[in-house]
């Protein structure tokens, strides 16, 4: 009887212990990720860094990719999409000048990771995903990780989310070859829209769209200081 009880206890406790160990390991990896991949490359905004330290990135990748969730790379999530490299997520977050309580729209939920990072410092995060499978999976990842404050919608991101507009910032993670006019309309005066430009595995540059009155300007930002790509003298 005692042996049975002992075995039963083991069966119940071992997975819990193992999960706790995994969580410790992932947390350790997260701290290292922020230190080595993000702070080291110049991201210094405290809200962004805290968000990156807190969001369990391993919950936002496919199970078989969990081991490399904190690596310095984008990771495929299916449907031709990726979860961006941690540094790019942090850089994009910093660029929109994060503030508590700001209203942010994300176009392209994907895995839900960027929305989770935003939800670390504001309760007004709205995210839209056009691919139904990703919308369901991304929302599931967010809920599983405890982000109830993110509203997810399966729809065409072209039209934005008018009922919640205007937005302080719009983060476009699934860029198209044009900037939808409704998104510019839904951006607050003085608001910022950030768009990564590049292939799924390599962001070439980030485009920051700023609205000031009726004038809209775009600014190219290099995520890592690549230029000028010439040999040293």
């Amino acid at each position, binding site marked *: 009887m005692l042996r049975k009880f002992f075995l039963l206890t083991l069966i119940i406790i071992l997975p819990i212990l193992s999960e706790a160990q995994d969580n410790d390991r992932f947390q350790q990896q997260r701290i290292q990720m922020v230190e080595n991949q993000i702070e080291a490359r110049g991201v210094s905004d405290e809200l962004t860094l805290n968000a990156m330290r807190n969001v369990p990135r391993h919950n936002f990748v496919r199970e078989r990719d969990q081991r490399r969730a904190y690596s*310095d*790379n984008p990771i*495929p999530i*299916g*449907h*031709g999409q990726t979860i961006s490299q941690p540094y790019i997520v942090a850089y994009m977050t910093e660029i929109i000048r994060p503030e508590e309580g700001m209203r942010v729209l994300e176009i392209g939920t994907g895995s839900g990771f960027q929305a989770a990072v935003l939800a670390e410092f504001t309760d007004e995060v709205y995210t839209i995903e*056009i*691919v*139904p499978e990703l919308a369901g999976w991304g929302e599931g990842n967010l809920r599983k990780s405890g982000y109830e404050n993110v509203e997810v919608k399966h729809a*065409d991101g*072209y039209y934005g989310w008018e009922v919640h507009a205007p937005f302080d910032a719009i983060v476009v993670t699934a*860029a*198209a*070859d*044009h*900037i939808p*006019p409704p998104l*510019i309309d839904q951006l607050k005066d003085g608001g910022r829209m950030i768009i990564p*430009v*590049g*292939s*799924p*595995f*390599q962001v*070439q*540059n980030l*485009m920051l*769209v700023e609205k000031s009155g009726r004038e*809209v*300007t*775009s*600014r*190219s*930002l*290099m995520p890592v200081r*690549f*230029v*000028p*790509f*010439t*040999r040293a003298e």
Partner: protein
Amino acid sequence: MSGQLLKLFKAFSGASPVFKVAAALALSSVAVLGFQLVMMQMLSVAQWHHFAYMVISMAMLGFGTAGTFLVLFKDRLKENHRTIIPAGFLLASVSMALSAWFASRTGNFDVFLLFMDWEQVQRLLTLYLIWALPFFFAGLSITLAFFVYTKEIGSLYFANMIGSGVGSGISVLLLWVIPLELMPGFFALMMAASALIILPPGRLFRSSFALTVFICIGSVFVPVLPEPSEYKDISKALNLPDAEIVHESFSPYGKVQILEAPALRFAPSLSMTRIGEPPVYPVMYNNGHYFGTISGVFEPGEHILDYTTRSLPFEIRTPELVAVLGAGTGMSASHALSKGAERVIMVESNRHALDVLKREASETAGQLLNHPGLSLWKDHPRRFLSRYRGQNPDLIITPVLGSFGGTSGVGSMDERFELTSQAFEKMWDRLSDEGIIATTVWADFPPRYVLKLLATWRNLLEAKELEPSDHVAAVRSWGTMTLILSKSPFTKDEISNIREYSQIYGYDPLLLPDIEDHERKRFNIPEDDSFFAQVDQVFSGDFDAFQNEYFFDIRPATDNRPFFAAFVTPGSLSELLDEYGISQLPYVELGFMLAFVTMFQIILVSLLLILLPLMKISWEKGKRRNTFFYFAGTGFGFMFFEISLIQQFILTLGQPVYSAALVISVILIASGAGSYYSKFLKPVSGNIRALACVIAGIIITYILMLSWVFSFIMNLHIAAGIFLAIVILGIPAFFMGMMFPLGLRRLQQADDSHIPWACGIDSFMSVSATAIATMAALLYGFSIVLLIAAGGYLICALSVKGLGNAA
């Protein structure tokens, strides 16, 4: 009918064994080459065309490994050749029929993930094995036949070459009529038929044959076509809600699909000043790549492209006659018509796509193609530029360069003969006195496309002793740049118009004769001014100094090295590696990296599977040295010649698939004829040396003459061009075909144990040469590749004396 068949069967039954073997060899060779080209097409549909070269290498590798297998087990195989040769054909047939099904079982291989996911490497290796198997079995039977019937090698090699040549030709024709997914089964049945010709008596063989036929027919009824990569354009579009493929068809040009989706908007780098939803149109894809948006005719007035930088040339002049090169589905042509052009010449080489547009999209594109102001040239832009004799165009629009977000370098292996220095020279000559060449480039980071284009235009203008800054203007939006090259200097009014136009649409001037720094970054602000400094240095500064310092190769493309999108050199590879790291570099220059990796893996694998096992049976204190050099020289020379000419003939034939089919067919058939004729020659060293020197001489003459010959051919009707191509290819190939059988006969006279070894060396060199020639053409140009081919034959000339004798 049945009586005739019976007569034929009886005649065949009574034929000599050698005749039967030759017939089987010919038919199996048709099947092997046909299957090889079908595999190339299938992989182009599923992945990228870089795998075409990989398939050629796989085929050669299968053949090479078969040669090694023969060396190691030659006595047993020779003893049982009557059963092994047909058995090899049957196994080749089964593995052909099942290859697509087996490949689909390995999981989704995706080349885009190759550099970041170890599982993909494992899948690729498994696919290699699956693809190489049919070639191994067929190669084993063919090489064994050569070995057993060495005295008849001339006839057998002739049958082999003729079959291969025919196979390459008919597979292209069959692609017009048989759906791609049915083709492996078709060629598998042909391979089974070749086994039937020499099938030994007995129930076991009859049953095996019946089972093989059953599997082949099964593969026809349950065909498998590999899924396209999820990173291809069409896969992304299929993710959109309610996306639907409304048309799908195959041809040698590839798999054409038309897709409709409510969210498929056309607004490439749309000006941020435009209000309102962009139009939604069906989109055509070729092998999964974006080919064009199908818009139809616009009424004069507003066109969506008015809100992109592509409208720049129309803002400053009103062209009456416009030529659109590489016009795709005709979006730029419809734009020109809407801007009031009286006549538009739409030049597009993909005939299949144009036929589909007329037939399937008759309400939209069909209207455009039938528009009275539109003339259609179904030809390569270079052939148009050479052959067009009408009124000179006022505007020539080239294809848009790059793509949104960058191309990841997938196009670096593409021959872009319409973008070489010689092509722009032709465009300039064709233009009216006030004419303009317009090119739109997607922004890429770090900049490459725009710098290479500017370097090309600067060279052109300087050669004409014109001041480049007076003739070139450019504007930049957030995503694209449009550059215009005018034959006459821009007037002050035109320059003022460009400024005003930029202001209205939120663009920034990039190049104007009197441009000032501050106006370059009014609406679209770069992080710093380095891009402008690069543009200025390439366009008007010390180009050589800039190129020496810049990581990317931005020297103008030429007809000798027409790879406009190839920007990496071996010298810059280590620096780029330092900058990007091993995980990111492949996504900057995927095409180059794939070619590079393919080359190394092919050399390594063929070394392991072909050369090392041969070494096991000893080098025999250098006795085989001459055998090695002779057959290495023929293998290398033959493949370097073939690969280089496949790429170069695209210039005159206009299409890679047709070029490959024609060059391979002619070279193989002429080689087969040469091989047959070789039996009338004595395999003495004097004859062979003279032959090798003649081949090397012809190739060297070609290096000096080909560019002139190609210019001449481009002026001719396609039929006359093909005839001349046959002559140009056929003469050296006829002589090349003699080298292999003469060498084997020389060996056979002295020591026939060298023969399988020689076949193995030839295969190893052919395998490696395929990949190395591709890379050498990319980096150094076709002349160097041909020079190496000539060098290969000179090595044969030097080593022939000791061939078959102790060194």
